[in-house]
């Protein structure tokens, strides 16, 4: 067991989800009874969430309370909430684990969030590969309805709120808020540049809040234990709450763990993942999913929090830590990621649609011994130019590539001069 308090994962059990009874025994649905049942002003919820310092867990780290407060009092009805369960960032699987561990935690968070800005309907947006999560969630929604926590007149009040599981066709771009809304409305999932922001004109031009699943799951705990408690969970003075870290790569025990936000990378790898696999040395990691920069041993002790990573020019993103060892070719790793982003581009704007396949082509040539000297400068320029694309997908996709060139230029040059991948040299001969 972890030496740290388990909040979101407190009901984690091997091989099954927590039932509604188990969730209630652990204190679940009490915030709902207190705030919704007691008809406490929705403003109070927003106030508490604001004080808690909860930042969006989807990657951008936007203050959650501020997003909810952006729905103005005079905004039209109906208002919508969307839980973004289109978790497709490579290396990220926390939402799936969370949904399997404690679905009611998410349900309660959604109801409380909906209450805070008087929404009447929520969409739980889930990708096709997460069918099992959708099935569990739908089943548990029914239990919540039977218990009076969901549906018409929740807990006998005049507040009605229901959640629909929206099984999407699913693509990486659907994780982008505006594209996700388009997808729910049956349109092509292209991002749309704000303004108007979804909190003004979202689904069917009505105010809509889009939150990550993990973010919503934090809400009941903040409301039951108070914002100070939540801030106190952090390992750093400026952080707040716990964080679900997804660790993959060359460690002994990869997986999703709940730790105080701001836990040092070294501790995560060594204490919580059982260290590097035998014969492996830490070379680099991607600290927050595929659209962050390669981080070398230089920052091995960095606290894994939004602000600390920002200070070293990186991003916490989804806190999906991909660990690479000294035997891994990072050109190959970057190629693999670029392959993914090129495939997942929605095709709307030129730098992303055509630029990412171009980057993929250049990386493939370097990795496969067809690289040329000028490819490096060409890649650098491409990485810079995709910043002028329509949404954040392409700039994110360029992050691992540009950090590869910045940090591991020698390794890239070695590929070009040796006309092949040095890590495959033995196998090739």
């Amino acid at each position: 067991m972890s030496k740290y308090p388990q909040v979101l994962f407190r009901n984690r059990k091997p091989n099954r989800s927590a039932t509604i009874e188990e969730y209630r025994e652990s204190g679940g649905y009490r915030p709902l009874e207190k705030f919704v049942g007691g008809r406490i002003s929705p403003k109070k919820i927003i106030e508490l969430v604001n004080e808690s310092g909860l930042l969006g867990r989807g990657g951008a780290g936007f203050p959650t309370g501020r997003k909810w407060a952006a729905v103005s009092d005079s905004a039209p009805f109906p208002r919508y909430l969307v839980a973004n369960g289109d978790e497709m960032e490579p290396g990220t699987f926390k939402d799936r684990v969370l949904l399997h561990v404690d679905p009611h935690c998410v349900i309660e968070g959604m109801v409380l969030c909906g209450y805070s800005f008087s929404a009447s309907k929520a969409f739980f947006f889930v990708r096709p590969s997460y069918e099992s999560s959708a099935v569990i969630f739908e089943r548990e929604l029914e239990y919540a309805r039977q218990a009076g926590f969901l549906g018409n007149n929740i807990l006998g009040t005049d507040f009605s709120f229901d959640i629909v599981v929206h099984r999407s066709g699913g693509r990486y771009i659907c994780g982008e808020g505006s594209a996700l809304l388009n997808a729910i409305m049956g349109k092509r999932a292209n991002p749309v540049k704000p303004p108007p922001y979804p909190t003004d004109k979202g689904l069917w031009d009505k105010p809509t809040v889009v939150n990550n699943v993990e973010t919503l799951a934090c809400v009941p705990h903040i409301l039951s234990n108070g914002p100070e408690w939540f801030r106190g969970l952090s390992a750093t003075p400026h952080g707040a709450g716990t964080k679900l870290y997804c660790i993959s790569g060359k460690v002994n025990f990869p997986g999703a763990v709940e730790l105080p936000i701001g836990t040092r990378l070294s501790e995560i790898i060594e204490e919580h993942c059982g260290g590097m696999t035998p014969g492996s040395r830490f070379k680099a990691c991607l600290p927050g999913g595929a659209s962050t920069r390669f981080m070398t041993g230089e920052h091995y002790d960095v606290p894994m929090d939004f602000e600390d990573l920002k200070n070293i020019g990186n991003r916490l993103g989804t806190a999906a830590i991909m660990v690479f060892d000294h035997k891994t070719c990072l050109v190959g790793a970057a190629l693999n990621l670029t392959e993914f982003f090129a495939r997942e581009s929605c095709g709307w704007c030129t730098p992303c649609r055509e630029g990412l396949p171009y980057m993929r082509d250049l990386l493939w040539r370097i990795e496969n011994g067809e690289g040329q000297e000028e490819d490096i400068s060409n890649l650098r320029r491409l990485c810079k130019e995709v910043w002028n694309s329509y949404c954040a997908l392409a700039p994110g996709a360029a992050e691992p590539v540009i950090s590869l060139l910045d940090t591991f230029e020698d390794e890239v040059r070695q590929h070009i001069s040796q006309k092949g991948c040095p890590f495959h040299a033995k196998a090739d001969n």
Partner: protein
Amino acid sequence: MPRLIIDDIEVEVPGGSKVIEAAERLGIVIPRFCYHEALGSVGACRMCAVKFVQGPFKGVQMSCMIDAQDGMVVSTTDEEAVQFRKRVIELLMMNHPLDCPVCDEGGQCLLQDETVSGGHGIRRFRGSKRTYRDQYLGPYIQHEMNRCIHCYRCSRYYQEFAGFKDLGPLQIGNRMYFGRFSDGKLESPFSGNLVDICPTGVYTDKTARFKVRRWDLQRAPSLCNYCPLGCNTVANAHYRGVMRVEARFNQHVNGYFICDVGRFGFSYSNGGADHQMRPLAPRIAGNAVSAQAALAGAGKVLRNVAEKYGPRAIAAVGSARNSLEVQCMLRRICRNRDWQGPVFFFDPAKLRKTRSAVENLDGEIAVSMREIEKADLVILVGADPLNEAAMSALAIRQAARRGAPVIAIDPRPVFVPCDLMHIPAAPAEIEPYLALLVGRAVEKDSAGFEKKAMDFYRALLAKFGNTEPPAWIGELSGQLQSSRRPVIICGTDVTRETTPAFAAGCVRLLRLAGKEAGLFYLMAGAGSFSSALLCGSDTLPTFADLIGDIEKGLIKALVVAESDPFHYYPDRQRLGRAISKLDHLIAIDYFPSETVNRASVFYPASTIFETGSTYINQEGRVQFARQVHQGGAPIWGGEHPPRLYRNFIPGGDHLPAWKVLWEIAGGSAADAAPANISPAEFIAAENAVFEVFGSGNYPVDGIRVLKSRSGPEGPWDSLTPGSEPGPGACSVRGPGQDAGSLEKSTGSDGLELLMVEWMFGTSEFSAWSDSLDAAGSEPYMSMNPKDAESVGICDGDRVSLELDNGSLEIMVSVSHGTAEGVLVVPRHRSLDWRKMKDFSVRVLPGKISKLI
């Protein structure tokens, strides 16, 4: 009005303008692909990047996505922006097949222009190119997806602007595909605009494919003369044939687009696909003769008839497809020589309706097509926009996209590419329903009406009588009441004779109630407006009068200029008999029509592409189509280029019809006019409103000839409570009265047969343009389910309709969109419908029988 500096030049632009638009005001055309004025900005192609040096934005940004603001300093030539644009071009060209030598877009390709101007020349990408499978998109559009640069213009035009869903973006990433779910004919009758809007050669004009290079074309600004809207076009000719037609921007009329009929319906001018159909040789008694002989022959014939029987034994016939020049010349000759006529309308009721529309339209209430787009409510009154004047349907859609409700009061199953509240109303019910709608909407303002307006208002209320109003009236009149800029679009085809004036009165009443209400009429034929103007208030004979006189032997010679009575007149038998009684039939035309076939003297007329011609559209706008090419027998097959040298143009004897008329009527010898009379002279002399042609001002283009304002007297008086309501007087059905009134209409009077226009296939031009054969569908008769049930007919049945002179076989479409008590049949070229004694016909139920 933000002021900003672009490339060191200061400019002030209207609020809400994008930077790319602001630059255009300075004549700086920032490179672009996805941006198009008609489609707006979406920021997809990233081609319009510029550097923002000062102001709220900094660095390289897309000029189409940022509103011009005070204090901005923008550089379009900054090195960083230039390099970025160059990269965008490089990315777009990565997969482009570079097949310009075999691409019909070559020479007019935006991608070519931007590639060259952007400075991208050397391909660095070493990968293989992406390829796609092309789709069959119907007879007009050639698909070539490999050339695509994914600017989304096609899908945004096709789906958002034009309102059809069968073509759009598929797949993601760099596999993005623009096409249909599966191969098939494009459903939109505005699909041809894809050719113009595509910045490269993905969609090209299939009818012109591989025929000619762009730079070899003879091009000139022209007009579409199919319908009265007068959409602006550019006609392209080569080797004495018209090759293709493109849309030409006009900010008042058609905007950037035209319909498929106007784009692809030019083949009549080339004599059809095989170039054999058009009669190009002058003939006397069926034998080809020289041009001089034909002109002299016709002149001699007419002189002889006039001497022997008097000038009234000669009659002249034109049509609504005549240009203003031809119509004025016909009018001048008839007056000066005392011939009978001219007749432009075959249906006298249609003449009266068109004339009423022309009289009621003034500069205050008339709206242009572009102004329809800004309406916040549109009421169609006996108007079927798509079939009667297709581009107006696209304008209505733009209003609907901005939130305007669209209401149709019409007996036909009207389709417009937007949401439509359709009230199926028999022609007699149109006015009462409109009266109810407008009456309710102006109710609270009526107290302040002056006496004449008040009388009109009372008359309007009386129109509906005491019948209980239908359920929809509350909501719709509420919408009308809260609208600011409602537009009434009134037809002149299926409506009663009083309706055009009534609609004008309603518009004026709405204006008195404080609304900027506008009026837009639909008419039949490019020359409708001018012919109604020219017919004026004189008592000219109707075509039926002429036939009567021919039958009585009073008329011996008929001069028919660009007209075919056999196309328009409903009693073909009688017409045929009368024509054969004539001593002389002189035809001047470019169609191989029945009239031309029967003519004793035939002279080939020039088409709109071969001579300058003026048309006045249905909102009174004078427009000029320039000569595109010389004309003559198109060069077809054989050697390329042709190696037979002659000092004349084969088939080149055709003349503008007005010149032929001038010659055969005796020219200046019989008219106190100079030998080389110019159109300006004889047009200006015909009507006071043509003063714009005065002092030799010719051609005139773009000027509206409308009275500035006709005082309240005019239109108010044209509608009095007792005025003639036409056949089948107000039989408005209230709730619960359906059965009774149906019994009345089917039992005693039978069903009213409405002969209507169809987009592809009822115009005289479409009858001779084989390029339109592939478009449209089999004509059918629409009827209401109740009427169908009472005569035992189901949807999809084939029926035989017994008319006065025989039967008409047609398929039936049963729909709730058709009013009760009417049968709607298109005057389709493939239907043999001209078997009626009159234009207005009622069919008794027993005369409809199902065919097995």
